[in-house]
């Protein structure tokens, strides 16, 4: 019989996130980010966190809200160019930052999720990203050895989920969420729609519930758009 993973809300879901924890956050820019959990983490005020996330939000939304409250000790990201508070903390030395290639970031999550301690990846060979890393040649091409991430928590957002933790993402809001969901020691999922086990088509599920420790239906999703680009209708 299906195992029930539901919790009441974001506060309950993130209850044991402790100072100094390492967290994986799904999302690309502001798309597909766990808005409810971020708000709960801000409310809880837990700090000294290491956050692994492709981006760092913007000044007044996403992970930017946690930066503003100085909850983050270190960011591991691929692109952080949308955030003035981030820049201020980095230049003042308050914030530690490790920039890594986006595909390497995704694949280090993948490796963790698949129980693979290390893989060889080509991104960054011959650049400062390669410093301190083992370089190895396969078939005439150089690769860097990259380690699986070890994270205490993964916090992801999906479109639909069921009570046993199965998840379906919508469009490009999928991004890093599935690989991070597989990679956390404890994975917390917030969804726009929580349905009973059996309502999702088993062939359509992107993340099997086995990876999810807690799931809840979020509320008041803002889903802010960073760059609205449109075309005119030919009338």
């Amino acid at each position, binding site marked *: 019989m299906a195992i029930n993973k539901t919790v009441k809300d974001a506060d309950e879901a993130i209850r044991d996130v402790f100072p100094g924890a390492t967290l994986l956050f799904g999302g690309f820019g502001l798309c597909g980010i766990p808005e409810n959990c971020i708000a709960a983490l801000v409310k809880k005020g837990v700090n000294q966190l290491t956050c692994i996330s492709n981006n760092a939000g913007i000044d007044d939304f996403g992970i930017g809200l946690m930066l503003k409250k100085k909850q983050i000790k270190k960011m591991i990201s691929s692109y952080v160019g949308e955030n003035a508070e981030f820049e201020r903390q980095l230049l003042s030395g308050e914030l530690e930052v490790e920039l890594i*290639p986006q595909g390497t970031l995704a694949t280090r999550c993948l490796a963790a999720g698949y129980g693979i301690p290390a893989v060889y990846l080509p991104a960054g060979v011959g650049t400062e990203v390669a410093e301190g890393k083992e370089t190895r040649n396969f078939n005439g091409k150089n690769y860097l050895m990259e380690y699986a991430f070890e994270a205490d928590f993964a916090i992801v957002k999906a479109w639909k989920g069921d009570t046993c933790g199965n998840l379906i993402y919508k469009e490009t809001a999928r991004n890093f969420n*599935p690989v991070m969901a597989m990679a956390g020691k404890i994975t917390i999922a917030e969804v726009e729609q929580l349905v009973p086990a059996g309502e999702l088509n088993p062939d359509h599920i992107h993340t099997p519930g086995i990876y999810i420790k807690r799931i809840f239906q979020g509320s008041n999703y803002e889903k802010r758009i960073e760059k609205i680009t449109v075309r*005119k209708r030919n009338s």
Partner: protein
Amino acid sequence: MALTKEQIAQRIARELKNGYYVNLGIGIPTLVANYIPAGINVELQSENGLLGMGPFPFEGEEDADLINAGKQTVTTLPGSVFFDSAVSFGMIRAGRIDFTVLGAMEVSEKGDIANWKIPGKMVKGMGGAMDLVASAKNIIVAMQHTDPRGNSKLLSTCTLPLTGVGCVKKVVTDLGVFDIIEEGFCCIEYAQGVTIDEIKTKTAGRLTISADVKEMAI
């Protein structure tokens, strides 16, 4: 007359072949999508997890869950497919993208590229650029020939931190088209009204002029 950004994009679009999967970087590369020649079917990949990227949505039809790697709202087309970031970079890494267009701050005569960091200034991060240059089989750089202060961006050796080593195959600038060969930059086309002398003056890296050099047809 040096080329406009749109003309650079237009010239690059002529390199597209039928059936290509294409990744376009931010800036001039994005404009290439506007000049895909008639009869050429290509699919655009956006590395945040979309293959078959369509145009911007009509006003009022923006979907917060549907953006491109530049975080702009976009649309799908028939045949589009979504996937996660690991799959996305997996297809890049496995060489499934036929054609990649990137902007650059500097390119060296050996095909090195620098486009992610200016030490001392703010660092925004490399995003997916390092993955793309490490794996794409066919990388074209679209950029201005010189920086705003007139310094050549085609160098013997990059001065900025590298994004990738020996990976750029072709550079299209406002002045011309340059293959990167054993002997460095090889000018194969010049923009209308641009002289070979101007190109020589503005190219700091080793430059040869192709025996078949010709004026660019746009």
